[in-house]
């Protein structure tokens, strides 16, 4: 019995070679639509990461009084970088700030408008905290803010409470949008892969009819077809993921330049497995459906 099952699975694999063109066409379609789906997921994943990085956090910018001793604010920076919930700290000495500014202006020396304002640059630190979705956040942020303000030498702290709204909004949006999109994507992949496989089985309609006529049982006919469908799905989605991985490595740093600093990251393993599994299952399922009709 088990040897028969293996024989039938083997037959399913060998049968793919009997209809090379039909199967190549199917494979290309399956691969391409998987690739498109993977790319979609990839884009979503990276946009999501990027937006969470810039939006899903609270930023506080601390300005020290001009003329604060370097030693003093350096010590404070060390302490600040150990704060709870801190995701990132970027610090600028007055010299840093001036350098950045002149670089941004392409080395032009026209700082007239700045000097007019009589505004000597201050040491600053930009603190980014990640937002945990929850009710207590506003309170937490205002508490933190007042603590920061009370630090010695600190001149002022800028903090935009709108950012909390933004972050919360984005997290909620992600939750409410990502699943419908993945569902729709699944539908598209299912319909394209499914229909292509059913179409390719139409070229084998006669063969299936003949098998029935000589007394084959359902599973005798279906098992090889299911195997073939699964193999097409698995191969197609594997090729798609492989291609995407190659592309990701190749283009990893294509967006990684100032001021974007976006490093493309590959799909997490669970999403890869979900894609492989889904396409394979679709391949099997549509082979199954195709034979019923």
């Amino acid at each position, binding site marked *: 019995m088990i040897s028969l099952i293996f024989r039938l699975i083997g037959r399913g694999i060998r049968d793919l070679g*009997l209809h090379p063109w039909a199967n190549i066409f199917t494979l290309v379609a399956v691969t391409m639509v998987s690739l498109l789906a993977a790319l979609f997921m990839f884009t979503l994943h990276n946009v999501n990461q990027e937006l969470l990085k810039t939006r899903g956090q609270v930023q506080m910018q601390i300005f020290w009084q001009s003329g604060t001793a370097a030693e003093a604010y350096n010590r404070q920076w060390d302490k600040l970088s150990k704060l709870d919930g801190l995701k990132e700290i970027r610090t600028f000495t007055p010299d840093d700030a001036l350098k950045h500014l002149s670089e941004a202006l392409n080395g032009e020396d026209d700082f007239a408008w700045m000097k007019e304002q009589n505004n000597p640059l201050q040491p600053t630190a930009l603190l980014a905290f990640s937002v945990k979705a929850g009710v207590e956040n506003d309170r937490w942020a205002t508490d933190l803010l007042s603590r920061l303000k009370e630090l010695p030498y600190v001149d002022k702290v800028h903090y935009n409470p709108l950012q909390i709204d933004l972050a919360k909004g984005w997290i909620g949006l992600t939750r409410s949008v990502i699943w419908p999109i993945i569902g729709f994507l699944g539908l598209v992949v299912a319909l394209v892969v499914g229909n292509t496989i059913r179409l390719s089985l139409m070229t084998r309609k*006669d*063969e299936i009819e*003949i098998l029935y006529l*000589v*007394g084959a*049982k359902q599973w005798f006919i279906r098992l090889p077809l299911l195997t073939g469908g699964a193999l097409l799905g698995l191969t197609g989605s594997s090729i798609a993921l492989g291609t995407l991985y190659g592309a990701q490595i190749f283009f990893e740093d294509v967006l990684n330049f100032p001021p974007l600093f976006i490093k493309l990251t590959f799909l997490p393993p669970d999403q890869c497995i979900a894609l492989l599994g889904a396409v394979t299952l679709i391949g099997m399922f549509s082979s199954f459906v195709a034979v019923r009709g």
Partner: protein
Amino acid sequence: MIHLNRLSYSFGSNWALKDISLHVEKGEFIFLTGHSGAGKTTLMRLLYGALPVKRGQATVAGYELHKLKRKQIPDLRRELGVVFQDFKILPNRSVYENVALALTVRSMAKSTIDKRVRAIIRALGLENKTYIKCHKLSGGEQQRVAIARSMVVNPKLILADEPTGNLDFELSMHLMDVFKQFHTHGTTIIMATHSREILRTVPDAKVIHLDGGKICEPPEHILSEMAS
């Protein structure tokens, strides 16, 4: 082996078979004759379960076709060997694979399959085409593959629809010898044929003549062939 009671079949409003009643005992040899479109193939298709029995009763090899469930059809077909009028062989498989198919479907051991397939291929003179894909065969060679596939299973009942239409006289005679061998070993055979030369080869066979879907008295010239 076969009991038909007032069996009728219509395609839409076109009654291809009308009120067929027939009893075939085990071991009989039946010729099915009749004009083109008389209903011979339709009767065969009912017998192997490709068309459902909607009116009348039919029992084949112990299966009551008018009560048959879809799942039982493969079991029925495993009792039979069928030669289809249009061969129904797999064009991109070899002769060997096509003939072996009927046994593979019955989950037989590989060595048994091999022995029986080679024997029947030799008996039908196809041994030098064993590994040729069937779409490369001539019409008569394809027909012999179809016949080989029906015989390889050693069926209780062979339904052969026009099995010699593409074969020349000598080959037809040789094939009739093979059919008769099966017959003498107890196989029931129902053969649709147009050829008088074929009728002549089995003088003790019964002739069922269809005309417009009804069983009729065979015409004179057929009776005289059988008598000669």
